[in-house]
């Protein structure tokens, strides 16, 4: 099968998944809990359908595609912020510190982004597409970096991810990681392998859709009753140290 035909099939499969996810979001009234994610998804769904419909009109397709990417990236940042708010919402003691760390990470990522821009600029700013790809690469680095910092912070603070928030973050993270690789590679190799990269990107997006669907549909896991532990090695060590101290 040709890559172009495969891409068309994957595109249609993706739209079907998006239609199902849209139904789930509507049924669950997800816009109340996750307004930015709902907006991000709705926009992405509408844009996919529109771009699919106009794919033969080359110029319109091109401008619509870049516009969709720009709005998608902006809304992606909003989703990351929403995940942050949901995760730290009920932990005011941690939120202050987490916010400071988050802002610090943002500054570091902005510096990395500027470095990437400077390093790439002399080579490729002659081409408009290359310039846009570089800007997109920088934006994706920042988005992914912020999301990674959220995962690291939640582990450090021992926070529990609720099912749906975790699904949203995981799906977005996976999509962003593949998107970052695709944009970076595409900026380097030009038009060669463009179709193959597009297949990878659409597969990644469809996988993210399945992750979102899976986590939004599965019920929140009930907390298992807390089991009392057996006396562990620690008590023995404690005993040994106490004896040593008493000596």
């Amino acid at each position, binding site marked *: 099968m040709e890559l172009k035909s495969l891409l068309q099939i994957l595109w249609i499969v993706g739209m079907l998944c998006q239609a199902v996810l849209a139904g789930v979001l509507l049924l669950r009234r997800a816009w109340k809990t996750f307004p930015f994610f709902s907006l991000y998804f709705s926009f992405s769904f509408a844009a996919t359908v529109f771009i699919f419909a106009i794919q033969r009109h080359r110029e319109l397709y091109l401008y619509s595609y870049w516009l969709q990417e720009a709005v998608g990236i902006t809304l992606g940042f909003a989703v990351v912020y929403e995940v942050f708010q949901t995760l730290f919402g*009920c*932990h*005011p*003691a*941690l939120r202050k*510190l987490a916010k400071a760390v988050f802002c610090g990470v943002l500054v570091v990522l902005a510096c990395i982004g500027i*470095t*990437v821009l400077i*390093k*790439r600029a002399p080579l490729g700013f002659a081409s408009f597409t290359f310039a846009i790809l570089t800007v997109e*690469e920088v934006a994706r*680095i920042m988005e*992914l*970096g912020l*999301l*990674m910092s959220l*995962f*690291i912070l939640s*582990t*450090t*603070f*021992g*926070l*529990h*991810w*609720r099912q749906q928030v*975790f699904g949203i973050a*995981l799906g977005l*993270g*996976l999509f*962003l*990681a*593949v998107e*970052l*690789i695709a944009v*970076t*590679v595409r900026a*380097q190799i030009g038009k060669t392998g463009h179709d193959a990269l597009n297949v990878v990107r659409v597969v990644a997006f469809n996988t993210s859709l399945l992750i979102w669907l899976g986590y939004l549909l599965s019920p929140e*896991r009930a*907390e*298992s*009753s*807390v*089991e*009392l*532990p057996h006396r*562990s090695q*620690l*008590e023995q*060590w*404690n005993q040994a*140290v*106490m004896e*040593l*101290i008493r000596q």
Partner: protein
Amino acid sequence: MITLIVIALALGAVGLFYMAVRSRKKQSRETVRPVDLKAFRTLLDRDDEMFLKGRLPRTRFARLKRQRVSVTMRYVGRIANNASIVMRMGEGARMNADPEIAQTAAQIIELASQVRLQCLMAFAKLSLEFAIPSLQFTPAMLAPEYQKLRENVARLGKLQSANLSPVRVAI
């Protein structure tokens, strides 16, 4: 070079997400582990340490201090783990229809968050002490904060049905 770094970052992110999925599964099986606060306070007692420092040769004292610090770190690890579990359980209780239970749960979450922060501080201090045994950074706030958390969990246990009682006993 930049391209390689960016690709490595993206692959690192995928690895991180995979680990997050695994740790989330593990988290649901985590259990509360009891902490002997009296023993923990003894381990943190710096008068004891001064006494040992005066009596023992330097190398022996350093060895003993490192042993003591590693046991203390295990205790801190337990406290951190328990605080994390209490936070998770408190989130469920916060949605309770009874405002008193919901309020106590909110207080517990707040306290548990503070305990987690104290644990991070304690880890940093203890790591420094492990590296340089002559240093003394007592994580003084941790034991009283944990005691407070314990009392609040006990209060919530009384307010709520029996399913929180095991935590009350265990932590």
